[in-house]
């Protein structure tokens, strides 16, 4: 290259290039959304550490890679490759997305109950244009976040989970996002929409994994809309390779009496940031979010949780637990905003961390912004280590130091783990964490 690489120019060019490409479907409302996002992207620049929202998570590490949208790709994975994937073996409805594109051959969606629709976004554009026109892009109208703008402007595929009113689904739904088989420096921009009609009930597992060591960037936008009385159990498991970069946003909108229970397990990626935004549109809704993150050498994990109480009588709970090793870095930014007149709000946020090795760093910013008086709001955070007494006790019982640490760490996260209502998920995550701890403590 004769001209020095400049991230903003690279991404602007990628955007212009991407907009030219045909997505195979087109609606005026969608084109307008793309245009708005693209024009914002072109007029803004990437955030720096001086931006309050990015104070602790520098993106230089991301920007040095000249990522390009992957576009069409041919899946090289077969069912045989997924044979050892424990999650894939779960008795559930599986939609597998390779590099952001659904792969019907790997998906297992037979026997869906009536009123339950799970499909790729492209297919959804044909089958449910009205639903998408009404729901897609309706959260975060004033989007300014650069990576999300990129997704909004360029997304090509992703998936739709639509459960009609009063449908109760018998098995969990697994959205399996895998990256594989591509050379370095591709980015994937899947767009997901989850709509639960009034009184519907479902369990959704979103999983992000990778099968190869290629350097890639996942920019995922998931919008969730829960109608009156809908109940969603949402599990997100991010176990991508240490070569990937991950940026995801979950945008949640809740109607009256709806209930959202989310559990987010984050282990992978070199750099990852998860933004969870929840907004209550009507009264008496409940939003519970739990999370576990394990951060090892060279990783950065950033969580931004934003809960807005705009109407009275809603409940929100956030509980995140983190374990940090090596030179790992974690960022937790939890913001609870209670607007005027959102009386009887009940909001609590907690974040606890185990800082286990020199060089690890954790930056926490729990915020309460409250404009109503009849509220119960609190946040609590703590940072500590494993207690030497506890380690000694376990050692005196015949465990070696690694086993003792592993056991205490599992105990630390079990509080969150036990909130998983789906037994299969709890078991899967439990074994995942056990394996992770075994690996982490075996070198030390």
């Amino acid at each position, binding site marked *: 290259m004769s001209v020095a690489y400049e991230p903003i120019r690279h991404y602007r060019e990628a955007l212009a290039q991407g907009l030219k490409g045909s997505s195979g479907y087109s609606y005026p409302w969608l084109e307008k959304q793309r245009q708005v996002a693209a024009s914002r992207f072109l007029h803004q620049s990437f955030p720096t550490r001086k931006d309050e929202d990015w104070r602790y998570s520098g993106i230089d590490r991301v920007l040095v890679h000249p990522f390009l949208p992957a576009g069409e790709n041919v899946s090289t994975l077969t069912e045989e490759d997924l044979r050892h994937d424990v999650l894939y073996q779960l008795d559930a409805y599986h939609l597998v997305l390779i590099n952001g594109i659904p792969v019907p051959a790997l998906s297992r969606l037979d026997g869906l109950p009536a009123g339950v629709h799970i499909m790729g976004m492209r297919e959804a554009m044909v089958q449910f244009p009205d639903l998408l026109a009404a729901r897609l892009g309706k959260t975060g109208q004033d989007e300014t976040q650069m990576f999300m703008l990129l997704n909004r402007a360029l997304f090509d595929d992703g998936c739709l989970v639509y459960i009609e009113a009063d449908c109760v689904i018998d098995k969990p739904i697994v959205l399996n996002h895998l990256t594989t088989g591509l050379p370095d420096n591709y980015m994937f921009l899947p767009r997901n929409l989850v709509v639960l009609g009034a009184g519907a009930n479902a369990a959704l597992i979103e999983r992000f994994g990778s099968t190869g060591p290629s350097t890639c960037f996942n920019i995922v936008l998931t919008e969730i809309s829960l109608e009156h009385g809908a109940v969603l159990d949402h599990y997100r498991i991010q176990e991508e390779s240490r070569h990937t970069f991950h940026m995801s946003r979950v945008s949640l909108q809740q109607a009256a009496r709806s209930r959202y229970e989310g559990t987010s397990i984050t282990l992978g990626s070199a750099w990852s940031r998860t933004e969870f935004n929840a907004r209550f549109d009507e009264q008496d809704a409940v939003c519970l979010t739990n999370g576990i993150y394990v951060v090892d050498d060279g990783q950065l994990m950033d969580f931004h949780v934003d809960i807005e109480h705009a109407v009275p009588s809603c409940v929100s709970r956030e509980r995140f637990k983190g374990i940090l090793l090596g030179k790992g870095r974690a960022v937790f930014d939890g913001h609870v905003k209670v607007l005027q007149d959102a009386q009887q709000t009940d909001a609590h946020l907690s974040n606890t961390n185990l800082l286990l090795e020199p060089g690890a760093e954790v930056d*926490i910013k729990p915020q*309460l912004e409250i404009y109503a008086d009849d509220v119960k709001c609190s946040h609590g955070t703590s940072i500590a280590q494993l207690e030497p007494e506890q380690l000694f006790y376990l050692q005196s019982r015949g465990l070696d130091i690694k086993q003792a640490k592993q056991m205490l760490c599992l105990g630390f996260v079990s509080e969150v783990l036990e909130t998983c209502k789906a037994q299969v998920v709890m078991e899967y995550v439990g074994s995942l964490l056990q394996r992770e701890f075994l690996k982490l403590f075996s070198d030390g």
Partner: protein
Amino acid sequence: MGASTHELDALLQGKYPAGFSTDIETDTLAPGLDEQTIRAISAKKNEPAYMLDWRLKAYAHWTGMETPTWAHVHYTPIDYQAISYYAAPKSSADRPGSLDEVDPEILETYNKLGIPLEEQNRLAGVAVDAVFDSVSVATTFRQQLADAGVIFCSISEAIQQYPELLKQYLGSVVSYTDNFYASLNAAVFTDGTFVYVPKGVRCPMELSTYFRINTEKTGQFERTLIIADEGSYVSYLEGCTAPMRDENQLHAAVVELVALEDAQIKYATVQNWYPGDEEGRGGIYNFVTKRGDCRGDRSHISWTQMETGSAITWKYPSCILRGDDSVGEFYSVAVTRGRQQADTGTKMIHLGRNTRSTIVSKGISAGRAQNTYRGLVRMSRRADNARNHTQCDSLLLGDRCAAHTFPYIEVSNPSAKLEHEATTSKIGEDQLFYCRQRGLSEEEAVYMIVNGFCKEVFNELPMEFAVEAQKLLNVSMEGAVG
């Protein structure tokens, strides 16, 4: 309750209790700020060249800076050219010689508040340790302190008499490049307090300076420097009231504390400046930089503050825990009502080993006020076994007020232990019911609960201040209840 509700009511419906302006001829510079202003201030104060140099450097730096906008406060921008940067009373003989010469109405107000005679002397500006406008008129108890070897004087005096100490310590905690208001202060500060406690000396009395803003349109730029040498101890009290007026007044003070090995400094503030009227007009802009440096091992700095006044408070008394085993503490009660805005909190920077810090912050918000806690706890890589406990509670009275908590926590040492808790709520109906069932009126019940809410902080105040603080709290609460 000492003062009856009725009396307090009358008091509040009326004027701001300390809202009087003493008419004294002052030697005032014309409004405006440029290099000449700074040279003029320096010349009037007959300062040595090093001070002028320092001021000019600060001014040059300030001109390149922008007003910080990150705080959760809103106000019309300040015109720094419309402020007069120097005002000195021409003669100290004009000040009241005793309480007999003080306006009887004011004395009545003090009586209503139940302020003891000693205190009244001080409030009315009789005791001569007051910073009366920008120049320290005199300082009390000089002799007794001198016997102990303690230097307690105005900073202008110190600049003349103790240049070595000044050169060594002035700006060593809050440099002239620190922030917008600190730079402005370094350029134009007119006076303030200087305290030096020598090695091993326990200061024989509580030191206090009384600040008043007196001349109209005069910003106050106080500078306080307290140095506690090895093994010494000093407790310092600062309290403020200001006369009522319509124009906003800027107060950009800087306080620097230096604690050397085994030294302890306790710094207490009761701030009750004019908060503006019901619509938030007038009122003091209080943009203060306060920082303590625990420079020596086992040193100890504690900040205690009671903030009830000012239209806008922007204040973060902080501790740099540099020495091993050093301790930092911050206890704060911030009361906002009407349209007051307070953005206050602390920073605890743990650099040394085994350093400990405690933060207790109580915010009370009523009317249409905005009350924000903003704090930072940082534990650096070298700060082994650092320990912090933070407790931030907010109480909301009324459905149009707001309380916010914005703590920042940065930890990069695996032996650090830290807990942070914050709660926001209103007074529980059940608590009120219980008190009322015991025969208390609703107001009395609220006072009682709020006093209990703040007790943890008031316990840290020296006795004299604790009394005043509690009265002040009740007065501030008035009108917010029911």
